[in-house]
């Protein structure tokens, strides 16, 4: 674990623009809405015949994945390529760190290649924050998931999907279901939903998969799925890691599915127009019934499409924030030299 300071001291520049994207926590409603608005523009663009724009032409984006990921890594890669950046994909878990190289050494090596942006996934909470604090000025850092802490781009693509289908957040009751304890996605979703003004955010999980003091994040806690789903407008399922079963936090997959798996029967407790989401990849018959995952209320594939647009938005906004900050510094230096 790395020590953390106020994330916005580092992820925003002096004009309040996004410079790094590390967490949804503490960001203003205006900034989160700006990310969603920008992403909306990229959704429209991706439907066009030519899906590429020159915003990051000449920039080098390095995907630094210290933890395996296929889906997130590929959507970040596609997002960077659609912005015309050069992309380098590095799966560090199988290379440098295995040879004993430190995070700082890896970073310095990448910086020496004149990279402009690091997209980082790391199993330690706060690793990206540490990188953003120590990186050369003008390099943007995007958090692609750190430990149990945050997965802000996943949360924002979920928010985009909700907004596209429900419009205003203010009347919405949203349930987040599953392994809340180990989920960086759930934490980022809760912060984003609360900031965007959702009427009620519920978490539904067995006691063994609920963090202590989760109520402090402003959520309602349910251990009974049917009660928790009552009248909700949005059901956000979480992925269950199989190793949780091995560590005896759960009796069995079958037991979990019986109590917390989303079936058509359980979904009847939700609002008739409720939408169903899942960050993927889904475990059919563990977190969700196939009929629900493939059913008319499921937006799982929309989430994937929106993932590219949100990542394009965050990448272009943070690159612009870096340049604005650099200009401000240059102007300050020029005026102090006079």
């Amino acid at each position, binding site marked *: 674990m790395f020590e953390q300071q106020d994330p916005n001291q580092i992820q925003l520049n002096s004009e309040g*623009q996004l410079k790094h994207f590390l967490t949804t926590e503490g960001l203003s409603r205006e900034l989160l809405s*700006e990310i969603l*608005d*920008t992403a*909306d*523009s990229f959704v*429209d*663009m991706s*439907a*066009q*015949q*030519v899906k*590429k*724009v*020159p*915003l990051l032409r000449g920039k080098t984006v390095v995907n630094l994945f210290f933890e395996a990921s296929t889906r997130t890594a590929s959507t970040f890669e596609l997002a960077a390529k659609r912005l015309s950046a050069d992309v380098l994909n590095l799966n560090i878990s199988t290379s440098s760190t295995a040879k004993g190289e430190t995070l700082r050494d890896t970073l310095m090596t990448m910086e020496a290649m004149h990279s402009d942006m690091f997209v980082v996934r790391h199993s330690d909470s706060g690793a990206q924050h540490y990188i953003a604090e120590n990186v050369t000025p003008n390099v943007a850092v995007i958090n692609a998931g750190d430990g149990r802490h945050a997965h802000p781009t996943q949360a924002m693509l979920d928010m985009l999907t909700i907004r596209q289908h429900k419009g205003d957040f203010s009347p919405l009751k949203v349930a987040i279901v599953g392994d809340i304890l180990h989920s960086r996605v759930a934490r980022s979703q809760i912060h984003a939903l609360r900031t965007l003004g959702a009427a009620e955010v519920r978490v539904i999980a067995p006691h063994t998969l609920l963090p202590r003091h989760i109520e402090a994040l402003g959520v309602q806690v349910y251990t009974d799925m049917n009660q928790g789903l009552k009248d909700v407008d949005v059901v956000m399922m979480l992925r269950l890691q199989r190793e949780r079963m091995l560590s005896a936090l759960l009796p069995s997959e079958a037991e979990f599915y019986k109590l917390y798996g989303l079936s058509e029967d359980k979904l009847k407790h939700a609002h008739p127009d409720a939408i169903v989401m899942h960050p993927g990849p889904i475990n059919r018959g563990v977190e969700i019934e196939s009929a629900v995952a493939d059913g008319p209320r499921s937006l799982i594939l929309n989430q994937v499409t929106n993932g590219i647009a949100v990542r394009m938005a965050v990448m*272009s*906004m943070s*690159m*612009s*924030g870096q*340049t*604005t900050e650099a*200009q401000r510094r240059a102007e300050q230096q020029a005026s102090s030299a006079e």
Partner: protein
Amino acid sequence: MVSGVIKVDALLEKMTLELQNYLKAKQIDNPMIIGIRTGGVWVAEALQKSLELDSPMGVLDIAFYRDDFTRMGLHPKVQPSILPTATEGRHIILVDDVLMSGRTVRAAMNEIFDYGRPASITLATLIDLNRRELPVQADVIGEVMLLDAGERVKLTGPQPLSIEISKRAD
């Protein structure tokens, strides 16, 4: 403070006539009009009507192609460009409301070329401020305006179209 309002009907008539002569001289048949958002689209719609063109009109939003994006940031509400038919091999009339530095037109041409190689691009603008920073100049111009320092020009519309000249408050 608005210091002057100019009606654009006469300018559009002049542009229509000049475009007709230009197209005839260049032997261009059935061109495709593309307007640059927002003011350029209004002017393009008027020209599309007065030239009685059959081909559907295109709309460009050049926000993703601007060369000042890293300094100015990205406007969060960028609307998609709409090119209803293929541009490959087509004669295009590119329309903007105000031509100043030429950077918007450069960005628009970059975007058009992402859709294919047009046979030609003719540039038509309602107002030319004669402040070029790039070697970009219009083929058809409604009016050349030389503004005083601190003066700004803006096309308001879509109905009616008017040109407002205002002085920036210091």
